């Protein structure tokens, strides 16, 4: 059974503390009383609060602020065991004085993390501070007297009142029912904005595996169209892009616009999925994307392409082994897009053998550093324009080993961000029609942005 549960931030400050059993933190109490400035009169009361602080402080001093890295996920302080789990920079610690089933306590902590993520997303200091009332409520329901009671998120929902069951007005409740049963569950009536605005983001991640000779072994782009809509009323939207099938169809019809477009590239989309608001029947028959958008931010569609991908960067590696204790690496990267565009946050990661003892790096642009703990040379360039090239050369000194097997040569990986869609996708139009309210397509302010990021972008060397 668990005596108490504490949540700390990375500085060791307590964010949440919940004590279930009195036995924890008793030992350190005396020393605390001597050192703390509690008035003698209150000393007579066995101060639970003081006890708790002690257990809490002991953990901070011994684990979070310890100089060395963590030696074990279970720490014993003053005959009290602290089971701790770290999520991003948050520590969750379960405290007990009994000889408990260790696997169960850890499993419980994981479950606790799962439940919290289900309620408020990522476990971070900010989220925990914002939701601490909810967490207290959860802790109350999940554990009673240190025994796990009820840890299924679904079952918990009936007991957790954080949004306030009684606080809900009749109006709100009726809205919920209409949302569940009505035709348009994702948008409520009567939304009004003074300025009608639309933000469209095309976010793509490009994945590549290339052979040392520059042959593309596999490449695909997975993309998302994310939309933020601030539109009044119940607008009907129509979205168009340079999908090959659509363009070809329109081309036959002799559409002037399509004719203009066909000069440009059209792209073949392998597969795509839409947000529930998109009318699929219309898409299947006419390949047109029309919908009534939800309010706020949502993901309109998700797609994948494999053909005619614009690879924003080419990596040309040259690795030469000079004797048994030296390695010469030269890597050239070439940017392959319009010179007017700028790529950002470029990072090239060149793996080094395990027995590397020293590295000398020379690069023309950006900063390069050998990171021994990651066994890699990390080369970072803040910005790079299109149609440029840059190179790095490194001399790697190796420790002599009598190792017969050769170094496995992991691939060179790359990260970057470019302001265009590597799949070639273009938004052709996004039209808004609202018949009841008096604003037209022209009054809507629209923003479109393309961001291409690297997924797994690797070149073998």
């Amino acid at each position, binding site marked *: 059974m668990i005596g108490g549960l504490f949540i700390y931030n990375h500085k060791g*400050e*307590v964010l949440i*503390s919940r004590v279930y*059993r*009195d036995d924890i933190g008793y030992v350190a109490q005396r020393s605390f009383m001597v050192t703390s400035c509690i008035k003698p009169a*209150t000393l007579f*009361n*066995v*101060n*639970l*609060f003081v006890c708790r*602080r002690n257990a809490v402080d002991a953990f901070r001093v011994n684990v979070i602020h310890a100089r060395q*890295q*963590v*030696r*074990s*996920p*279970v720490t*014993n302080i003053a005959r009290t*065991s602290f089971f701790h*789990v770290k999520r991003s920079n948050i520590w969750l610690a379960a405290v007990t004085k009994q*000889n*408990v*089933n*260790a*696997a*169960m306590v*850890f*499993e419980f*902590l*994981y479950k606790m993390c799962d439940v919290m993520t289900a309620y408020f997303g990522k476990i971070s200091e900010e989220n925990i501070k914002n939701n*601490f*009332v909810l967490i*207290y*409520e959860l802790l*109350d329901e999940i554990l*009673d*007297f240190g*025994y*796990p*009671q*009820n*840890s*299924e998120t679904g079952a918990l929902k*009936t*007991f957790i*009142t954080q949004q*306030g069951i*009684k*606080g809900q007005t009749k109006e709100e409740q009726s809205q919920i029912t209409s949302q569940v049963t009505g035709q348009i569950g994702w948008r409520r009536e009567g939304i009004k904005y003074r300025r009608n605005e639309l933000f469209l983001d095309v976010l793509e991640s490009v994945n590549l595996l290339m052979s040392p000779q520059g042959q593309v072994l596999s490449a695909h782009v997975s993309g998302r169209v994310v939309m933020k809509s601030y539109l009044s009323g119940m607008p009907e939207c129509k979205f168009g892009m340079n999908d090959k099938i659509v363009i070809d169809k329109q081309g036959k019809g002799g559409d002037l616009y399509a004719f203009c477009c066909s000069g440009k590239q059209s792209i073949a989309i392998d597969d795509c999925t839409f947000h529930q608001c998109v009318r699929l029947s219309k898409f299947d028959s006419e390949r047109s994307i029309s919908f009534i958008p939800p309010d706020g931010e949502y993901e309109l569609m998700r797609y994948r392409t494999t053909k005619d991908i614009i690879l924003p960067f080419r990596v040309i590696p040259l690795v030469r082994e000079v004797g048994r204790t030296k390695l010469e690496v030269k890597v050239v990267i070439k940017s392959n897009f319009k010179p007017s565009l700028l790529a950002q946050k470029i990072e090239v990661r060149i793996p080094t053998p*395990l027995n590397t003892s020293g590295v000398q790096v020379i690069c023309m642009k950006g900063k390069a550093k050998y990171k*021994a*703990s990651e*066994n890699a040379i990390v080369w970072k360039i803040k910005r790079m324009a299109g149609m440029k090239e840059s190179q790095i050369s490194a001399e790697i000194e190796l*420790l*002599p*080993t*009598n*190792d017969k*097997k050769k170094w496995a040569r992991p691939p060179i990986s790359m990260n970057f961000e470019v302001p265009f869609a590597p799949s070639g996708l273009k938004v052709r139009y996004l039209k808004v029609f609202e018949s009841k309210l008096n604003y037209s397509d022209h009054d809507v302010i629209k923003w479109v942005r393309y961001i291409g990021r690297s997924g797994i972008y690797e070149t073998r060397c």
Partner: protein
Amino acid sequence: MPYLSGEDAVKELRRALSNPNVQSDPLRYRNTITKVIRVMSQGVDVSGLFPEMVKACATVDIVQKKLVYVFLCSYASLNPQLSLLVINTLRKDCQDANPMVRSLALRNMTNLRLPGLAEYVEQPLTVGLRDRAACVRRVAVLGWAKLHNLQPQAEIDAAVVNELYSLLRDSDPVVMVNCLRALEEILKDEGGVAINKNITHHLLNRLKECDVWGQCDVLRVLERYRPQTEGELFDILSLLDSCLTCAHPPVMAATLRLFLCLSAGLPSVCQSALERACGPLLAACGSNSREMRFTALAHVQLMMQSVPGLLGAHYKRFFCGYAEPAFIKQRKMQVLVELVNDENVSMLLDELKGYCTDVDPDTAQAAISAIGRIGRSYSDKCLDILTGLLGLRQEHITSAVVQTFRDLVWVCPQCSDVVCAALQGCEETLQDDQGRQALLWLLGVYGERVATAPYVLEGFIDGVRAEVSVSVKLELLAAALRLFLSRPAETQDMLGRLLHYCIEEERDMCVRDQALLYYRLLQCGPEQARRVVEARRSDPALGVLIGRPLQPIDAWAHGFNTLQPLSTAAATPDSSTRGSPEHLHCEPKHTLTEELKALTDVAELSQGSVVGVEPAVVSLSLSPALSPEDFEEMWLQLQSLHMDQGASAVEEGDFLCVVKLMPCQMLPVNSPQSLQAALQLVNIQTMAFTPPNALPWKVYLYTHTQPAPDSTSAECTLVLAELLYSSDTPDSSRAELSEDNDGLSPLSGDGRKSGDRCVKITVKQKPRDSAALSGFLCILTAVLNTVSAECKL
């Protein structure tokens, strides 16, 4: 800094709470209370707000209620008088129509932890036990446990205990498990819940309904049950069988523990349970979460105390990932050391070598000492790696290597040549105390073989004034004295200086006393000093291969699935691994001994018919004793001769080498002690054996044959033998070859018939005497047959 400067915040909050405007607006009121809780969880002492918060308790808003309860439960013990006011509200809530409100009130009433309030709480708790809603019953049941915990001396009413027992049959599984938990706490003095047959079967049937936590607790309680018949035991076990391969590690571990407890008297059942649990345990070892991996590894280590060979085939699962934290890596290395055998040794060493250059110095040192441990059985390969590491000239690596050398030389003196050669130049890189101590010890003991030893010591002695560590000084004194005894001319002067410094100027009493002792010892003359100081250089009691004594499963079963394996641990008991086969406490079953004697007698009588040649009556003797080093040397020497001359010329020279297959279904690979004891009865000494359950499994033996009065052979012969037991079909062609040569074919004819499991016996005899050898083989065969028959039983 919220810890100290909270007073202003408290004042402000009090003002807000008592503001009538705030109180009339539910949303603002609730927000203010939220603020109080926030300040409280930051560590500010807000106990001064107690009266205001008690007032806030009387509300219909559940959210506000919950918040106030959190506050009250933390501070009630400071204000017992004021808390009485809350009780009224709580008791009223206990009769609310909403079960959620009822359970909330009941839970917080018991969470207040005020002994004075017990009388007010009992009545609602009793009512709560019979509530319609399961969530209220859950709380009420545990409420009794809390009440008992609050006043351990006060007896809980027997009627309540009875009611709790009856609630074990409640329809809600959580109520059932809570009842078990509450009864365990209330009846702690009587040994917990009374587990009889009915309750056991009821719990087993309901086990599937419980959640993971409930299952763990139920399985824990069931450990106390003792099945009346073996049939019942097996019924229970087969019911629990599915839990043993459960995906949740805690449930799997709890089930395994229950299996081990229930079938404590049946080793074969325990063994098969462990085998079945292997898969899930290995899966847990590769689990995504590092804490669970750590826990699983600790349990694997525990299991390996009894069945080291169990996971032998899966050794690759224990290779470390690059990004794993140090505590997991170190555990994995400890496991790997146990799993080493002839086939995977080079692979394992390659892997461990990779860890030696880990960025974390502790991990690197653990890897080096792991190589040292393997070096006790495979010294050549390990010494190559260790000396190679010295070339890196890294401080922590050199230190670890030198310490490993010291430990290794103590166990395997045959390594000392390589070690002495490698020590040159180490002193330049060594910085830490432990490493320098190890170096000094080695220089003292093997000083005559290290050319530079006096110079190194001189360096130390010149710097002794600046030396801080007492233990290094003590080691230095001992080393200087030993070196003086082996190389007096070079060392005399510096020893004099050292003694002078230590006696005249040293502040530390221990060092001074030690120096005085040595000084007086030297006054008695070098011979006397030598007699005292020159102790053993190694532990002669150690074998070529070292088997750790096997723990019976019961020895660790009670610690399984608790905290214990996680905390004991990091230090594998080094001293116990130094136990040699001779020092093992083997107490074979008495019946076995008797039986063996009878059987060997029979075998000796009937050997004529078995062998088909002249009944070679031999008597075996153990003296003169053979030391492990001699054994190894002789074994290798005979082998090399054998290699040089090729297989056909096996019997040339003055020795004989025989390879023979013997069918043997079961060899007691899991209890080498019994085999050892059996062999000892017929005067065959076991030299060494591989860890139990590892495959291939090897035993090395030796004995002397003595001429029987009526036999033709005139002299004593020394017989060395190796038993090799592997699971795969042995290479019979090679056996045939030697069979034809040695003329012992009648004995080994049936080796190929039973095929699957054989023991390969390699015997080397010097000088050759085939009659005596066949006698020896006959006795050995008889013993093995007897032991394997015993094994089958």
